[in-house]
């Protein structure tokens, strides 16, 4: 323990030039450019760096979503004609145009970071008149933060469709994560919602480039490279072009396998006033939720593609019910014995997740499981799991058994 006076003396010794707080920020600009990213779903701040940055939510909005980053557009001027977007050049009533300067944006980020309001910056943007010029400013903002202000927080940069390879490369060297929004599951679907973007050359080709560059750098450094520690991600607008869930699943599979994205995010389409899609029906939020569950089954539970397909209806849509339960009904003919089942078999039982499956395996090494209450204490959701389990030779009676 030291006295406060000594601490004050030590702090004074190490005094450095003050960063200076963000001064004279136009509140209307902050709101307009912040609003531009309110449909960007990624709020992850986890980054496995030298000192891993933990995932943390500094606040939640009234819709229950995490606010962990200062998510903003660099500018809301845009030359693209996305039919669902209020910043599109085709929108009949565009909001007032605003732009930040890199220095201004860096200072706002630092002010909020220092006050412990945010964990870092999520920087997206409209394409302006020239996407390369805007991309240059985005990179400049990140460079200012990292080099001039020694910012060690999290940075997620959006790569604008059609951005040059040189800018993408610079962005990758500065950010924890980069992403390009896929928006639609195929070229034809993207054509329905945006006539100015090319699915293959503006988006997928850029994703492949990020993937290749990351691979090359990691190979050069023998796996020790810290470039882009949180990888690349993508996001789709669900239901804007009338696509089915199965089409989305198919494109996401390609993204995971061929591009190597860390995660795909889904944002249910919601019509915005004065846009071309104003009259199209909003997609239910449960659709987004079911797609996340399906995504989780593939990415975390490692379900096989053919198993997941069982959850889709003939028309290719997911029902508003847990896809894992639908898959279990199709696949689990015999009840699973938690004392004998493998990790993968346990994971296929509704109500058992990776953690509870691990706990079951660890527990049964010492003594066999004898009652449902023991499973409940390990985090298993018994109501969901019981119809698929057989403990000590006993299983729950189900309606199907009565019918038989």
């Amino acid at each position: 323990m030291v006295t406060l006076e000594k601490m004050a003396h030590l702090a004074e010794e190490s005094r450095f030039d003050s960063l200076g707080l963000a001064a004279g920020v136009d509140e209307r600009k902050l709101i307009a450019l912040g609003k531009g990213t309110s449909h960007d779903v990624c709020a992850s701040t986890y980054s496995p760096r030298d000192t891993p940055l933990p995932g943390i939510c500094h606040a939640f909005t009234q819709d229950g979503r995490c606010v962990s980053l200062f998510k903003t557009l660099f500018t809301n001027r845009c030359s693209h004609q996305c039919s669902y977007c209020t910043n599109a050049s085709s929108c009949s009533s565009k909001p007032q145009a605003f732009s930040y300067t890199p220095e201004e944006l860096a200072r706002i980020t630092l002010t909020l970071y220092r006050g412990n309001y945010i964990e870092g910056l999520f920087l997206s943007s409209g394409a302006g008149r020239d996407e390369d010029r805007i991309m240059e400013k985005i990179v400049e903002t990140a460079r200012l933060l990292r080099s001039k202000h020694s910012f060690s927080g999290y940075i997620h940069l959006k790569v604008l469709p059609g951005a040059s390879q040189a800018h993408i490369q610079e962005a990758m060297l500065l950010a924890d994560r980069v992403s390009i929004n896929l928006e639609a599951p195929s070229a034809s679907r993207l054509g329905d919602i945006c006539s100015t973007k090319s699915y293959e050359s503006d988006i997928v080709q850029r994703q492949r480039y990020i993937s290749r560059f990351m691979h090359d750098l990691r190979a050069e450094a023998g796996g020790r490279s810290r470039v882009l520690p949180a990888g690349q991600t993508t996001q789709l607008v669900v239901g804007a072009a009338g696509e089915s869930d199965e089409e989305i699943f198919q494109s996401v599979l390609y993204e995971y396998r061929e591009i190597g994205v860390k995660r795909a995010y889904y944002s249910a389409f919601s019509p915005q006033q004065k846009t071309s899609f104003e009259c199209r029906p909003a997609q239910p939020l449960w659709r987004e939720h079911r797609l996340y569950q399906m995504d989780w089954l593939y990415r975390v539970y490692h379900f096989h593609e053919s198993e997941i397909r069982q959850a889709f209806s003939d028309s290719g849509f997911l029902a508003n019910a847990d896809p894992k339960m639908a898959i279990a009904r199709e696949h689990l003919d015999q009840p699973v014995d938690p004392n004998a089942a493998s990790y993968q078999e346990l994971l296929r039982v509704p109500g058992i997740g990776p953690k509870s499956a691990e706990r079951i395996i660890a527990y049964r090494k010492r003594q066999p499981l004898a009652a449902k209450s023991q499973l409940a204490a390990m985090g298993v959701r018994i109501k969901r799991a019981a119809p698929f389990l057989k403990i000590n030779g006993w299983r729950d009676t189900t309606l199907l058994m009565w019918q038989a």
Partner: protein
Amino acid sequence: MKIPGDFLFYLSMHRECNERLLVRAKEIPENDLEVSLDRDDIRIKKMVRDVLGEVHRMRAFVRLSTCCDLVLFGYLKPRHRIAEYICDHLARRNAGIIVVLGNGSESWACLCRGSRVWRDHGSGLNQTLERLKAALPDDAVACKPGPDPETLWQAYYDSQYCPERKNLLAYHKNMPRRDQEAAGLRLVQNKKNVTLDDFFVSSLSSAGEHNES
């Protein structure tokens, strides 16, 4: 929530932790606590999770204001003995700046420089800040004018809300009033959009929290 290997450290910060419990906890092998169904072990596990949960939320919810270039301060009145740990975390995040957390009756100060850490524990937050101001040279205490970060934050926070996704139950679950109060957070709910529903959901969630405690 997975029980970490150093769970004894977190257990010791629980407000109800005592010598007997620590001795009992030391006997439990690291991996066993996760799967043990023993009554004492389940209680220890719950206590560790309570502390981990509060640590996580206080790291997120405590807001720091600028006293001068060299001092950041914030309000904190946690249920468990985690204040020093939170103060350390925030001081590491703001190296070279003294971070003071506290409330009306006690305060914790921490300074990180390089790999070294200095700490102090004293009386109320205001007294500590006064003592620090007195110890610092006048030019260091003079604060440069700038906008209140809270104003910046509130404008940005309001812009992130999508009314079509309104889900007050999730909001109250993720931002319990009890933890907001512990971190001295002004309720960040967007007041322009408050409806009668908000009042009912908020009262329900408060009743739930009281029942839990």
